[in-house]
């Protein structure tokens, strides 16, 4: 809703005069709450699986800082990508392209939250975790958003590292080190990211092309993307069982991860084989299941820990 006509000023309102009239929900939207929820969940599992006995208050503080840091990275991403967001139907309603938040306000909001989350994590929990959080924010906001996203179809592959780091940060917060276990969790999220995003990109290819974002289907075509999805799924399915094979998760997790991996692989195979309208359905199914896959995999790790 435009606020311009409702200004009871005799002068014509300038854009700057309209700044700062966003609702609380607009600032929450800048933090990408859906992405943040996944970050918090994977970080929670990293905390829960880590050895040691971090005080619950400090564990909560670590999770809060990781969540706010992820939100800050998302906010900086929205600030930089406002021009792209305005050209895509999926994102044109976001606070900046919709005009409810001024770009400068979003930049200040993102920077303040980024610095605050890193400083607070460093002062209260762990310097290593704080350094990793700072690196994650930098990687997502600068390396992925400002550098890779508009330059290479491998953008989400490399950028996926930022989304995969929260369990490692959480592990570092609990132990003060980076364990092999946390690196396995990192690799699972890292190899999960390409098939997840490319399934969506196949459906939104025209929008990405219009916005000038070189996603893989835009640059290399649908068939090459389907093959890449299958290759990453072939890596992901066995990788998902690695925590059990390496001995830091139990048999129940191993069976669940194996079964979920087979379903993931079957859906990726359907994306690879089908064409036309059936291919779109296969992409939608893979995209929806990929979210469930990661949630269930990490939930299994969490439940196993709670039961133990």
């Amino acid at each position, binding site marked *: 809703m435009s606020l311009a006509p409702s200004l009871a*000023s005799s002068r014509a309102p300038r854009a700057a005069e309209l700044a700062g*009239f966003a609702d609380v929900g607009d600032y929450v939207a800048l933090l990408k709450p859906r992405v943040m929820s996944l970050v918090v969940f994977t970080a929670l599992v990293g905390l829960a699986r880590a050895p040691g006995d971090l005080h619950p208050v400090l564990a909560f503080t670590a999770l809060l800082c990781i969540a706010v840091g992820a939100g800050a990275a998302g906010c900086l991403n929205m600030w930089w990508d406002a021009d792209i967001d305005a050209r895509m139907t999926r994102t044109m309603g976001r606070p900046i392209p919709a005009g409810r938040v001024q770009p400068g306000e979003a930049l200040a909001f993102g920077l303040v939250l980024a610095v605050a989350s890193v400083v607070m994590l460093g002062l209260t929990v762990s310097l290593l975790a704080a350094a990793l959080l700072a690196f994650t924010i930098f990687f997502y906001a600068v390396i992925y958003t400002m550098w890779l996203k508009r330059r290479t179809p491998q953008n989400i592959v490399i950028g996926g590292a930022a989304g995969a780091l929260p369990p490692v940060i959480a592990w570092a917060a609990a132990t003060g080190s980076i364990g092999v276990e946390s690196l396995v969790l990192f690799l699972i999220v890292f190899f999960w990211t390409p098939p997840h995003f490319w399934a969506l990109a196949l459906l939104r290819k025209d929008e990405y092309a219009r916005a000038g974002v070189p996603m893989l289907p835009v640059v290399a075509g649908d068939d090459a993307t389907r093959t890449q999805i299958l290759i990453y799924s072939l890596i992901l399915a066995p990788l998902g069982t690695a925590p059990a094979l390496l001995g830091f998760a139990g048999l129940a997790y191993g069976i669940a991860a194996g079964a979920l991996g087979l379903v993931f692989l079957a859906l990726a195979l359907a994306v690879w084989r089908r064409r036309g309208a059936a291919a779109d359905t296969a992409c939608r199914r893979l995209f929806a299941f990929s979210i469930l896959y990661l949630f269930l995999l990490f939930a299994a790790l969490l439940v196993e820990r709670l039961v133990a």
Partner: protein
Amino acid sequence: MAKKRDGIVLTEEQRRRRRNRSIALAFVLAALALLFYVVTIVKLGSQVMNRPI
């Protein structure tokens, strides 16, 4: 006699949004103050009272 106000006069909707933002900010600041207090107690424990006067 009431003095005429210059500049922008906010609508009810804009006032409501500003008030909501202010309330949200107040909650965040209060929660942060509480968190810093609790974290200090957790990290220092009984040592929190051990300081030279």
